[in-house]
């Protein structure tokens, strides 16, 4: 019941292009803009109040105090948002002895990175993560695209139960599935194999992606399918050759979602993968700081290396994300 709306929260950024533009345009646009600019602002407090009662300040206009308050609040918020990752980055260039110093730069060194890359299993973990995430993304996007297309275009027996199942699966806490999955994996000897994680991550990604792709396909005119059918394409041919290429933004969004989810998953990865060679990054990062070791300096370097790909993907996908989520959210 919530899936349909899940796309919605992000939908609004759709308007973001239009709305702020409109808001920005207004102050200059109105014929009253000129008269308003100088007149009431300078008057005494009482007069100002009276003036405001008649014609309140328009949106987008502030007194200097409000302006300072606005920027101050946002600066504080921005500082809080940036500081932890920034400090991670700063610390990663400090030697072990200076890890907890307060200065921004002290004895700048790349030694932590050198050690992490060459003297730990970091690259193995990185490879494991990339393998798992790529497989999950490709498989997940592909099968959720076909499902989304079927849900969007065909009416078939079992359709409504399937949609409900997808919705409910989305809500499932990992705590319900992790124990039985662990036992099944152990029975079929799949523990410590990437395939175990790929299969598990599909359950996290596919329900959401299928809903999302359904939303996308809903926005693609049915007449395109019809013309394809008239020209003699099979339903699969229509899907593969005509509709899928048009849904590329949707594929980007679902792919992005799957990538980010799988890259940051901790619980299954920690439970299913043991032994230094098999860890993914989420497990690997934990090995630097635990009961036995306190290698904060190495942890920071590894953390930065882990965050970079995710941040790049996020930054790249952000543009697609807004357009994509919006398209997916439009109801027909």
């Amino acid at each position, binding site marked *: *019941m*919530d899936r349909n709306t899940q796309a*919605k*929260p*992000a939908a*609004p*950024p*759709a308007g*973001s292009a239009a*709305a*702020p533009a409109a808001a920005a345009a207004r102050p200059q646009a109105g014929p009253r803009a000129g008269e308003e600019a100088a007149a009431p602002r300078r008057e005494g407090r009482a007069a100002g109040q009276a003036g405001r009662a*008649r*014609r*309140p300040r328009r949106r987008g206009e502030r007194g200097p105090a409000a302006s300072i308050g606005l920027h101050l609040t946002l600066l504080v918020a921005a500082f809080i948002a*940036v500081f*932890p*990752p920034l*400090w*991670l980055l700063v610390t990663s260039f400090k030697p072990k002895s200076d890890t*907890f110093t307060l200065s921004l730069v002290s004895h700048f060194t790349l030694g932590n990175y050198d050690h992490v890359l060459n003297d730990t299993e970091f690259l193995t973990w990185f490879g494991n993560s990339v393998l798992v995430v790529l497989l999950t993304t490709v498989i997940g996007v592909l*099968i959720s695209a*076909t499902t989304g297309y*079927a849900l*969007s275009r*065909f*009416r078939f027996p*079992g*359709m409504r139960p*399937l949609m409900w199942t*997808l919705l409910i699966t989305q*809500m*499932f806490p*990992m*705590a*319900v*599935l*992790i*124990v*039985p999955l*662990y*036992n099944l994996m*152990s029975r079929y000897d799949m523990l410590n194999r990437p395939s175990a994680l790929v299969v598990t991550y599909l*359950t996290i990604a*596919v329900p959401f992606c299928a809903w999302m792709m359904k939303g996308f396909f809903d926005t693609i005119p*049915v007449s395109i399918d019809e013309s394809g*059918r008239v020209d003699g394409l*099979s*339903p699969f041919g229509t899907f593969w050759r005509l509709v899928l290429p048009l849904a590329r933004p949707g594929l980007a969004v679902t792919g992005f979602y799957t990538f*980010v989810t799988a890259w940051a998953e*901790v*619980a299954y990865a*920690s*439970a299913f993968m043991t032994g230094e060679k098999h860890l993914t990054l*989420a497990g690997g*990062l934990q090995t630097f700081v635990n009961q036995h070791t306190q290698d904060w300096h190495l942890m920071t370097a590894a*953390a930065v290396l*882990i*965050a970079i790909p*995710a*941040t790049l993907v996020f930054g790249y996908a952000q543009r697609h994300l807004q357009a994509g989520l919006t398209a997916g959210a439009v109801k027909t």
Partner: protein
Amino acid sequence: MADAVNSLPGAVRTAEPRAPRPAPARSPGRLRHRLATYWYAWAMVAPVVAVIAAIVGWPLVRGVYLSLTDADESNVERHIGVNRIEASYEFVGLDNYRAILRDGDFWDRLGWTALWTVSCVALTFLTGLGLAVLLNRTFRGRAVYRMVLVLPWAIPAFVSVFAWRMLFNERNGILNSLLEDGGIDAVPWLSDPTWAKAAVVAVNVWLGVPFMLIAMLGALQSIPAEQYEAAEVDGASPWQRFRYVTLPGVRPVAMTVVLLSTIWTFNMFPVIFLLTHGGPAGATDIMVTEAYRLAFVTSPRDFANSAAWGVLILLLLVLFAIAYRRALRRQGEVW
């Protein structure tokens, strides 16, 4: 055969409203006909159905079964070298549930989970809405602020949690160093139950605000400007505009993101697991981390109890979703 005309193979959905569901087919001829009609649709959804059945349906059934047994590390089926040891756990009925519900620990966990969920969601929502209102204006540097404020979303949560753990470090973390410079005693951020709870909530809010911010910003921007103009013409004060135009305008999106955020927070695993490991002495363990701890951290691993916790968690979520839906229905929202 009437609907056969409508549902020619490959007939694409048209704009007309959904037709009533066809009467259930019984005769074998009808079945073959339906197979011929729908096989491509079924083929397209088959992979997803297979995945869900195999990795969600089957484990769910097994999980419920395991929760009714006394399975633990020592008696489940396992491999030692090439030898396979058969499972030897036994069916014990509802004993696990009875034990859990009688134990005071369950109610402690439930209470803390509720407090954790409510405080995280409330703080995240209020902060997100507040920042969105601030950002929903025109001023210099708006895009930069927005980008910076979304940054916590772009970084994998487990990385950020480690960053916070470093800041919270009791002996030499930067927070305590700054406090000591200011002449204040060091705060035991992660080793005192109350402070640890505050710390995990703070980190989770930090992680959750960007999503709220983007969602609420979108909601704000979808409010038609005419409504504000009308309010201004009527002489509404800024507060009145916020109260009577903004809040009703963002309500639909807010309801959705609050529901989502509640479910995510309730199920939030990495923050608590990585920041405090549920400590000190289990003080910050919510139900999800408790279930995980029973099965994968404590020794011997207690699979049966963990599965029982999992089932209880699922039941709570289902109850919550039903109640939420009821509440929405009563207020006239249909979905």
